[in-house]
């Protein structure tokens, strides 16, 4: 049998603090999942069960929430996650060309992660930064307006820092 997942005690303390801010334990579900994903890189089935126990919720309720929200994912993403916006303003300013270019440079299709877990590529809906269209979210950072040259530059910087 698999060993039961143990949440780090440091994170547990932080989670306890978050839960205390809410009127019900369930209300802390999104922030708890957000923090857990930040720490472990994904929401694995083991984390789901741990969170269900921790917040005294049926596992089903946790599963339902994890699968409803786009930002939760069960698989590990690459160290550099490129999320390319493909909504209206970005489309009007040429995001399709940028997405194709990035696919070519990373040798990845939409939704894929490189084998070495260095890169992930996703297309996403509006990130609310249409003034910098075409734009993307690179990990936590908003970047735009994108050109082939600026994409080259970003990839070069990543290469240097690796």
């Amino acid at each position: 049998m698999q060993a039961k997942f143990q949440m780090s005690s440091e994170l547990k303390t932080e989670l306890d603090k978050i839960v205390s801010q809410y009127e019900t334990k369930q209300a802390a579900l999104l922030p708890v999942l957000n923090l857990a994903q930040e720490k472990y890189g994904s929401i694995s089935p083991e984390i789901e069960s741990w969170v269900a126990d921790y917040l005294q919720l049926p596992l089903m309720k946790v599963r339902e929430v994890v699968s409803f929200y786009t930002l939760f994912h069960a698989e590990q993403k690459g160290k550099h996650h490129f999320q390319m916006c493909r909504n209206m303003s970005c489309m009007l300013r040429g995001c399709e060309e940028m997405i194709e270019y990035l696919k070519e440079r990373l040798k990845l299709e939409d939704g894929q992660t490189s084998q070495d877990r260095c890169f992930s590529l996703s297309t996403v809906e509006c990130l609310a930064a249409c003034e910098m269209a075409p734009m993307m979210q690179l990990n936590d950072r908003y970047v735009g307006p994108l050109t082939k040259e600026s994409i080259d530059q970003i990839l070069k910087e990543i290469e240097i820092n690796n």
Partner: protein
Amino acid sequence: MKSYPKILSKNFEVPHAQHIGVYLSGGGYEAARKVYTSWKPEQLIEEVKKSNLRGLGGAGFSTGMKWAFIPKDSTRPHYVVVNADEGEPGTFKDRYILCKDPHALVEGILIACFAVGSHKAFVYIRGEYVEPIRIFREAVREAHEKGFLGKNVFGTGYEVEIVIHQGAGAYICGEETALLESLEGKKGFPRLKPPFPAVKGVFGCPTVINNVETLACLPPIVNLGAEWFAKLGCEKNGGTRLYSVSGHVNRPGLYELPLGTPLREIIEEHAGGVWKGRQLKAVIPGGISASILRSDEVDIKMDFNSLARVGSMLGSAGVVVMDETTCMVTTLLVAARFFAHESCGQCSPCREGTGWVLKMIERIYEGHGRSQDLDNLLDIGKNMMGNTICAFGDAAPTPVISYITKFRAEFEYHVRHGKCDLEDRSQKSE
């Protein structure tokens, strides 16, 4: 270029305005202090009603009226919930307030809490806003340190706490009752109304839900008066608005202008006109959920009433400009993909309708459109409207109906010839 007073964006260019010291040196927190130390809640609600401040998240409901719906005799706690789940495509104003003037929001929250007798505010910020959340969290910490938040606000013994709640990527959570569900740790399924949140909101308690921009208007209303604020805008639409302008313009960006500013002026003067010397083709005036306007319809005042009169809406004031080279089938494909992705799946007409619409538009886009497709699309759209729990079911078919109706010939060409007439035209001119 015409210039207008900067109310909401006055600190956007001020260096370090996100720090409380800079905010205080510009008269910050004076409005909240005044309200807490010398006003009555009823007086504040009346003042905000008189100011003609309307919900700037997009619905445009009178803020003062919304506050007045909170029952006076309730023994349960009251909550203020801030909608910072900014996600209406074409809109990016709340991000600017969170990042560049976060204390204006903290002060606005304080004022709203006083109005409705609330001691706790939840600020629901979209999950992707990692940097805005960090900046806003720091502002809350600073305000706490100064005694503007906590157990003894401005030494009055009144308690206000702010809890920042990070979302997780769901457009529907911008709908206020879905937001409440999400805040309670559930999937974002909108609630049936009534009961309205003012009676039964978060945790079953009376709740006021206000947008970031709306709340940021409160300090200036308190400082300079309801009449002054009302006069900034136009009839029944008080104040200024942060217009997000994007798409085919020379200067995409955020422009603070009075409510009622003509759309043509926003595009041609403030945003620098259509790019590359091209002609204007169409404009979405208030986020992707608003009916599109053709180039001959842009001589219109940008306020809630004027746009409603022509069957569109001011909504979130996200202005998306399209030049003459824009293919309307492609734009509709983008809109349809978005709504199909974001439909929460609760109501059948929307869950199924957005999927069908997307499939049919994809078919047309790929050159396999059928002659009955356009009328079927209009039919599906009309059958979604008014038949769902929330306004998403009205928003999703709006691009479908307005783009096809206003650019019918272009869609028909696509269906008949399996390609864009713009492509054909540009090939002929080469």
